[in-house]
């Protein structure tokens, strides 16, 4: 049993990590032709370039981080109350609301983006960071709303009533009793929001009009121009937050499912 689990974990880790190995190798390679198993020569040139001033990689890294953080904060502020209402309240047309919330996930992003581009142009939001944050909310919000809705749907609101009966105000009941219980799930929602924003390409390209440079845009331009070594270094920089978040949240993910599983 335990060996079976370990084997499964090993297979999963291999499947996830193996594709990244060539990227790491490329980032240290100086010429690597087809039949060769390893590069002819090694070099730190790609890394030096990436961290240098000319590449703009560091600027793009911070820009992407800023956009992803802003998107996450706004998405949580809007999405958690919406999810709470969807999860707890009973009202007519709830299925319709769910469908509307899901719409950005169902409709292809490029279609939405082209339509939004025209609107954003008229509003003067193209080419600005705020415009990019706004358009990132389109794919991010559904995640936050749906995760919080399922979180609250499994939450027994009588906990808040019990707290009230014992002397807590409405706000105290939420903050002292509900918040600690739903927090692990909300952390997961926030991390997913961050990653979804972090990995946006098309929306940033269209609405940013080339003036908002993020890591995925930079990565794509180097990859398509055949600079595999720099693309490799950038790709590693690009996947770094994902791996860090996964490691940091694995405990929260487990706690989150435990919270949901209990009721």
């Amino acid at each position, binding site marked *: 049993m335990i060996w079976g689990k370990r084997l499964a974990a090993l297979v999963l880790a291999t499947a996830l990590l193996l594709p990244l190995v060539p990227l790491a190798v490329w980032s240290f390679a100086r010429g690597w032709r087809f039949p060769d198993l390893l590069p002819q020569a090694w070099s730190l040139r790609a890394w030096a370039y990436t961290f240098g001033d000319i590449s703009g990689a560091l600027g793009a890294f911070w820009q992407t981080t800023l956009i992803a953080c802003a998107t996450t904060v706004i998405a949580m502020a809007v999405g958690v109350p919406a999810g709470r209402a969807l999860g707890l309240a009973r009202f007519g047309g709830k299925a319709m609301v769910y469908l509307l919330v899901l719409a950005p996930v169902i409709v292809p992003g490029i279609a939405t983006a082209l339509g939004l581009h025209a609107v954003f142009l008229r509003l003067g939001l193209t080419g600005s960071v705020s415009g990019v944050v706004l358009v990132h909310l389109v794919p991010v919000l559904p995640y936050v709303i749906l995760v919080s809705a399922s979180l609250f749907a499994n939450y027994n609101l009588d906990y808040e*009533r*019990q*707290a009230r*009966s*014992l*002397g807590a*105000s409405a706000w105290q009941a939420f903050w*002292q009793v509900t918040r600690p*219980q739903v927090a692990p799930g909300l952390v997961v929602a926030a991390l997913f929001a961050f990653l979804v924003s972090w990995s946006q390409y098309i929306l940033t390209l269209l609405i940013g009009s080339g003036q908002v440079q993020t890591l995925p845009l930079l990565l794509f331009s180097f990859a398509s121009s055949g600079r595999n070594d720099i693309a490799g270094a950038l790709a590693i920089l690009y996947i770094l937050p994902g791996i860090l978040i996964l490691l940091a949240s694995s405990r929260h993910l487990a706690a989150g499912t435990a919270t949901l599983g209990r009721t």
Partner: protein
Amino acid sequence: MTALRLDAISKGYTSGSTVIDRVSLDVAAGEIFALLGPSGSGKTTLVKMIAGFEEPDRGGIEIAGQSCLGQAPERRGAVLVFQDLLLFPHLSVTDNIGFGLKMRGMTPADRSAKVTEMIALLQLHGLGGRKPSELSGGQQQRVALARALAVSPDILLLDEPMSGLDQHLREEMGQTILGLQSRTGVTIILITHDQAEAATMADRIGVLLEGRLEQVGPPRELYNRPASAAVAQFLGGRNFIPGQVRSGIFESGLGHFALPETSAGPTWSAAKGLLTIRPEAVRLAPAAGMPLHENCLSAQVTATRFTGTAVFVTTATEGQSLYVALSPQDAAGLQPGDAVKLHLPADALWVVPNPA
């Protein structure tokens, strides 16, 4: 002093159906009052209105002499202990018990003293650091009680406090609650669907049927002198003989029965009524064993049912079924088909209005 006064409160849903219908009730301070009713009778709605989670459409609620209509739950002197207990899973036993005190802004030193007192009162020694998930069912129950009592409420509302417990734990919990009441003097309103629980715990019982408080009184009175056939039925009464009262005698198709002389309730003068008697009050003897005197009739056993502590005997006489509860010793050897004599002692008889 009156701890709780309900003044003709009513509550309906927007669909027009009435959940609570003009319920009036006074509960004295220090009393254990059981609100007894089947599921769907409106007990939960009534309790939510007392605790402040719902407002009545009409009528008044007073707690300790103060009207609390429109008052938030946290400002009321009534603390509800939910059926699911709802111990806060992220807090230790100590923090659970101290929760209400913390919300009231009590200093950590005072809070700690009060929590210690509660831990002693409910025998939770050594469990203060545990999380609720690490406690047994009985311990969780005691923590929930300690948490509610810590805030020194005027009224403790207990919603089905024993429903989640095993039989032996129920008795223990019943004793715990009675002990708490005698030591703290808190007024307890017990919400239950279990008549035995209500009878063993409460000073008085209120029977709630379909949103109406049908009868309020001490347990014995409810069992022996039900106000209606519905109350009698809900409390396990199964013998109802239609007939009419005429000058202290109940005349029915089964014969005439002498009624107790002392009591004269309002229903006794009504022409038509149902004669009722508790199954355990009926005396049963072999056909030849008992001389046929007043209030006796012959019957035939049609079924017996062993319940562990009693035997329920179904008998039939002239198309009327009569139920008798006997101790297993007294029922030994009784078989379906046996001819028996039944004695309905006059002092155990009672007449309720005939709803038909």
